[in-house]
């Protein structure tokens, strides 16, 4: 996963939208390091689950001084903005699509892949609808209950299922805590998933 520039994230079911967004933002924060994060979404992607909240984003591990949000009117504009942003070497670009639309067509996702490969940037495609895509992986995300002391809310937690994986078997699921301070995921179960998620130089 570390070496591949295009990945896809979607909610596992209704009510998983915020978890999917949180997982996407966590991926972006862990990969970005000192580089910029562009978050380009079509209007529908910002409508349902509320507007991005800068205070919360900063606490979540996203450096506000390196974050650019593009609120595009239409899907084509969001895709175009994502392609432009991918021209920034090292940047992480979130391309967020709304829940109502059709899945992105294969050609459009290939373009994102191409732009990312050519420029040494990365892209997370956040799209609720599942369809054929050039992404290396697709992750279906559901929220997971806290593991903290009774009555306390712990760090953000996800149930992440690898529903598509070009590089190996799919179908495995992980319960992951997001450590915003370390900007890293930690797996709840015994299995190690650090190899999957740890940010590494792509060409290393």
């Amino acid at each position: 996963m570390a070496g591949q520039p295009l990945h896809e994230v979607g909610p596992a079911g209704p009510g998983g939208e915020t978890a999917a967004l949180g997982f996407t933002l966590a991926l972006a924060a862990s990969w970005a390091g000192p580089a910029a994060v562009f978050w380009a979404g079509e209007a529908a992607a910002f409508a349902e689950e509320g507007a991005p909240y800068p205070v919360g984003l900063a606490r979540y591990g996203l450096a506000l001084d390196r974050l650019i949000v593009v609120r595009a009117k239409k899907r084509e504009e969001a895709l175009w903005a994502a392609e432009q942003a991918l021209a920034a070497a090292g940047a992480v670009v979130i391309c967020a699509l709304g829940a109502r639309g059709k899945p992105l067509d294969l050609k459009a996702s290939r373009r994102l892949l191409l732009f990312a490969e050519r420029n040494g940037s990365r892209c997370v495609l956040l799209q609720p609808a599942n369809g054929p895509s050039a992404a290396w992986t697709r992750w279906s995300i559901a929220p997971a209950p806290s593991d903290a002391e009774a009555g306390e809310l712990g760090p953000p937690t996800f149930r992440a299922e690898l529903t598509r994986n070009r590089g190996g078997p799919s179908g495995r699921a992980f319960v992951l805590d997001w450590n915003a301070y370390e900007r890293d995921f930690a797996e709840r179960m015994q299995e190690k998933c650090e190899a999957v998620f740890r940010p590494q130089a792509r060409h290393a």
Partner: protein
Amino acid sequence: MTSACWLAIYLPRLATDRLIRSGRGPAEDRPLAIYAKEANGFLLTGVDARASSLGLRLAMSLADARAMQPGLAAVEAEPAEDALALDHIAAWCERFTPIVVVDAPDGLFLDIAGCAHLFGGEEALRDQIARRLLAQGFAVRAALAPTPGAAWALARFAREPSPPLRGRGQGEGGRSGRGANGAVLLYPDRPPPPAPSPQGGGGDLVQSLAPLPIEALRLDEAAASLLNRLGLKTIGQVLRAPRSSFTARAGERAMRRLDQALGRAPEVLTPRRPAPPVFALRRFLEPLFSVETMLIATEALCADVIEKLERRGAGVRRAQLHLFGVDGRDRVIEIGVSRPEREVKPLLRLFREKLGQAADNLDAEFGIEAARLDVVQMERVEGAARSLVAVEAGQASAEKIAAIVDVLSARLGVKRVLRPKLNDMHAPEKAGGWSAALGKQEVITLAPPPDGVMRRPLTVFAQPQPIETLASVPDGPPIRFRWRRVLREVTRAEGPERISGDWLGGAPTRDYYRVEDKQGRRYWLYREGFYGESDEAPRWFVHGLFA
């Protein structure tokens, strides 16, 4: 003094020409006059060429005029419309120079020092403007001089006209040319050579102004009547009279006008639009129709202004591209960049975006005949030369990010490309916001908490969404609640975090809770007001969502 060159344009029949041009003139053979109500009745304030040839004059009473010419078509003056027409003409003139001064009610000043060479010289430019205004149906007189005052005087009062120029529109198309036909029209004057120096007096200028009547000095009534009392009829006589005879205030004003006309005193005029500090102008032998050819022209203009800016050690921050259509319209395309730009390519890229977007609205079916690039905002480029920008290996530079922001903002609009902004406010909805990413700005960020627990949500609703609480304990979070028609069972909750009504601008105090439901979904809820505060049960809202 620089060899500043001014072109004064005088539209002696603006009001009647405007009416005839817009199809509101009278039938073919009737004279047209404009009247206005003055202190002593209705007086003529404008006459068309035909009325003039029939002996109707300005300031004649309407009754007398009607007696002389029973067929007279008389229209009441519409000064606001005339002013609008004059402004349109001024806007049209901006294709020749960015510095156009509206000289109400019927004149314009154009500073053509920087651009006459593009049109084959000052006289050629004067003739082109005059000929084209004539073709549009406006009687016009135009004169060149080193000062606005002298140009004004010559345009209105010079006696030795060259043969009137004939516009193409004349005589062939019936009405449109009629107003401009006949008596007046265009008397181009030989431009006096530039004034040698402010003190030198400018012999040639004096010579051309001397025979003109004193009205050519743009005098107010008091000053004019003073000169009349002194028996001075021409500018030459005023020049020969001893200055000591002009001690009265009115006399001083007359002298000041004279000095301005001769370039001995400065005159400050306010252009229709603020003059850009740097601009480049091109006109095209053949009109441009396609966006591609416009872009080629734009590239040349960008190169022109960047060369000029380089000499000042500055770059472009904001620029306006004016595309002047053969149809007389001015299409303006504006771009902005976050950092002073000193390269052609990034600017051209922004223009390509905007032009591509505007292509459908350009209405360039008659073509674009001239283009001007105004640098409306420039900024000094700090530090090293542009080629020495260090780029961290494998990571886009701040310049690159800024360039991307520029492109995105140009195409999608500045309000759609945003940076987060933290505010020092207690009200949660005011503590964070978004502002246009375009432009230089310091963004402050916050560190994540060491325990990794989120106390503020990822998203907030602009309008907190009311929820129905099904079971709750006083002063505690709900046990179950319904939101978006789904019942949610609370398994964990932390709070309350009290946000006082004082911080909320006098709204009821809020108690915030972070709650988790059975599925692990997390909400930022608040209760408005206290239990027992009123008879109504306190209301609950979802304000935001956590991952």
